[in-house]
């Protein structure tokens, strides 16, 4: 997952120079925003965002039109009176200098301005952009998901898919009753998923609450299994920004490799997209080297249009992964919700050259389900996502069902629950 970041660093230098130049031009030729009623500007997409042609399918064909669909870079009127018509609570403009963590958060803002083609990132600009994304027809979306679910994956394909799925699991325990003993036991399971078959791959990560990170780190040692921590007042996200940042900071300091944050669904549903954006960008800045998974909690967003918008917002703010659910709200992950998110990361890479991962979490319990997800990853996002770096399952019970099926393929006989270990 380091590669895209390296590319970003590479990409930012010319972009920064370009922006400085643009800023001067804007100051000189365009009436200053405080004095004019409106300042309308559409900035062209800099070439640096299109540089990674190797990553982009037919970027040449799509580039010419990326501005049209969904208004990815649709012109947005930035009003100086936005403080009264926009979000009345939040500052209507994100000022990078005023952001709590200047570095990463400010680059997220600069990046967002560029993607949107606006000179200042306001809630109105974000609203215009998000609401200009193509709509999602529920029936068609669910029909497509269900059709993909009819793929028949047998024999060698099934064996391959099972091992891939095991390697994509974020083995999860997120209970109030979690103890050191429980977490250690789960870590042991991750290190040795099937004592009868040492060739069994290990899950990608253990996912725990922040206070269990140190315990998990210690138990996993150098097994290669990463530690993910939920943070930002998981699962509701109802806390002040400072508490959320502190929560994140604690987990990162304890050694978390990955942070699973929740978005502020209340802010999202009330149209305060800038608030949601800023929080993600700030948490991202707090993550340092740790990867950020942004939980949309799709069960509370309800519509697929909202899921598509939230996914784009999370990617715009710098999330490394977008994740469906906390697992504490029903419905959690579903095939159609994951379909919409896979379409979003696919489109995002075509737009920006940046690849973002997807993690469905909650409710995925069987091998059959997991394989349906993998089919969807393969046929919708593409093979580039068929790796634990880009696709994860947030699950606990799924591992043992995969192991049962794995044993069946190896031995030829159906296995039973006595032949897989509990954690």
């Amino acid at each position, binding site marked *: 997952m380091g590669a895209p970041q390296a590319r970003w660093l590479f990409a930012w230098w010319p972009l920064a120079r370009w922006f400085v130049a643009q800023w001067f031009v804007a100051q000189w030729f365009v009436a200053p925003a405080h004095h004019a009623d409106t300042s309308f500007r559409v900035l062209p997409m800099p070439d640096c965002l299109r540089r990674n042609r190797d990553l982009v399918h037919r970027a040449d064909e799509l580039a010419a039109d990326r501005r049209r669909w969904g208004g990815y870079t649709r012109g947005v009127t930035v009003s100086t009176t936005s403080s009264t018509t926009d979000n009345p609570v939040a500052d209507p403009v994100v000022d990078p200098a005023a952001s709590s963590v200047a570095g990463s958060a400010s680059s997220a803002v600069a990046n967002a301005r560029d993607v949107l083609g606006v000179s200042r990132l306001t809630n109105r600009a974000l609203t215009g952009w998000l609401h200009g994304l193509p709509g999602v*027809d*529920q*029936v*068609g979306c*669910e029909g497509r998901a269900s059709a993909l679910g009819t793929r028949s994956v047998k024999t060698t394909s099934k064996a391959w898919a099972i091992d891939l799925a095991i390697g994509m699991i974020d083995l999860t325990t997120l209970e109030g009753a979690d103890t050191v003993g429980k977490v250690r036991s789960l870590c042991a399971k991750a290190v040795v998923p099937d004592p009868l078959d040492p060739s069994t791959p290990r899950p990608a990560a253990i996912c725990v609450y922040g206070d269990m990170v140190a315990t998990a780190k210690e138990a996993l040692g150098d097994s290669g299994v990463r530690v993910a921590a939920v943070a930002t007042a998981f699962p509701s996200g109802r806390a002040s920004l400072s508490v959320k940042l502190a929560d994140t900071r604690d987990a990162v300091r304890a050694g978390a490799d990955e942070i699973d944050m929740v978005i502020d669904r209340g802010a999202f549903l009330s149209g305060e997209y800038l608030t949601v954006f800023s929080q993600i960008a700030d948490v991202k800045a707090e993550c340092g080297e740790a990867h950020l998974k942004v939980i949309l909690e799709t069960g509370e967003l*309800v*519509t697929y249009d909202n899921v598509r918008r939230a996914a784009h917002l999370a990617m715009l703010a710098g999330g490394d992964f977008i994740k469906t659910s906390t697992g504490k709200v029903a419905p959690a992950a579903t095939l159609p919700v994951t379909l919409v998110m896979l379409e979003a990361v696919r489109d995002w890479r075509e737009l920006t050259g940046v690849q973002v991962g997807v993690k469905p979490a909650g409710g995925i319990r069987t091998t059959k389900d997991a394989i349906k997800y993998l089919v969807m990853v393969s046929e919708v996002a593409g093979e580039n996502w068929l790796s634990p770096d880009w696709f994860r399952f947030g699950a606990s019970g799924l591992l043992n069902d995969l192991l049962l099926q794995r044993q069946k393929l190896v031995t030829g006989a159906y296995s039973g629950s006595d032949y897989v270990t509990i954690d």
Partner: protein
Amino acid sequence: MSRLDVRKTYKLYIGGAFPRSESGRSYEVVSASGEFLANASMGSRKDVRDAVVAARSALRGWSGATAYNRGQVLYRVGEVLEGRRSQFVDEVAAAEGLSARAATAHVEAAIDRLVWYAGWTDKVAQVLGNLNPVAGPFFNVSIPEPTGVVGVLAPQGSSLLGLVSVVAPVIATGNTAVVLTSGDRPLPAVTLGEVFATSDLPGGVVNIITARTAEVAPWLASHRDVNAIDLTGAAGVDGLVWGELEAAAADNLKRVLRPAIAGNVAVEPDWSADPGLGRLRAFLETKTVWHPKGI
């Protein structure tokens, strides 16, 4: 000292205007008892051609008018007809050899039929349309729509009641019509054209051609820009085989309303009977629209 009548000229009614036949021909129309009544225009295939153009161009506006509006226009036709009933009584009596009393009954029945169809315009979609309960999350509705340009062979016998009974259902649902009148009894049809012209019916919705049916009907039946044809008036025409018209209509798959049959012979229907919905249905297409239901 008796006054010399000012005679009326009977012309065609095409596109809201009253032209003579393009062919320049006319023919003598005589009463049931053989007295000269008038020289009617003898319509030709080119008049049919012009009438179809007029009907086609009127179609968009008429089919796009609200059903309420069409109902009001049809009712208005009834009103104007009522106002000229004595003229129609005279013409029908002369044409069909009826007593004044019998002719009056025919004219009144024609007016009542117009009013009956006027009331149908905004009900037919409710009666013939349907919301279909498909097995899935879809809104699915079937609605009747006008077929388009309809060629009408008006009955040879009943010069007004029969004529109104075949024309009204065609236009009530939004079709436009090219009407070939009764060959021998065309005069009430031309006068009905004058009623149409003065009763808010847009020009071209009904086009009336007086002609020798056997000569002109095949051109109407084979015309590619006509969507349907009513063969009612093929009954009782010498030298005209309705099956040949139907065969010609197959070239562009016109919808065909066959003549009434009694004992293997095409006959003119009993115009006093309850017309039912048959003539309305005959010139309607069912369009079914699907749309997903989701959030």
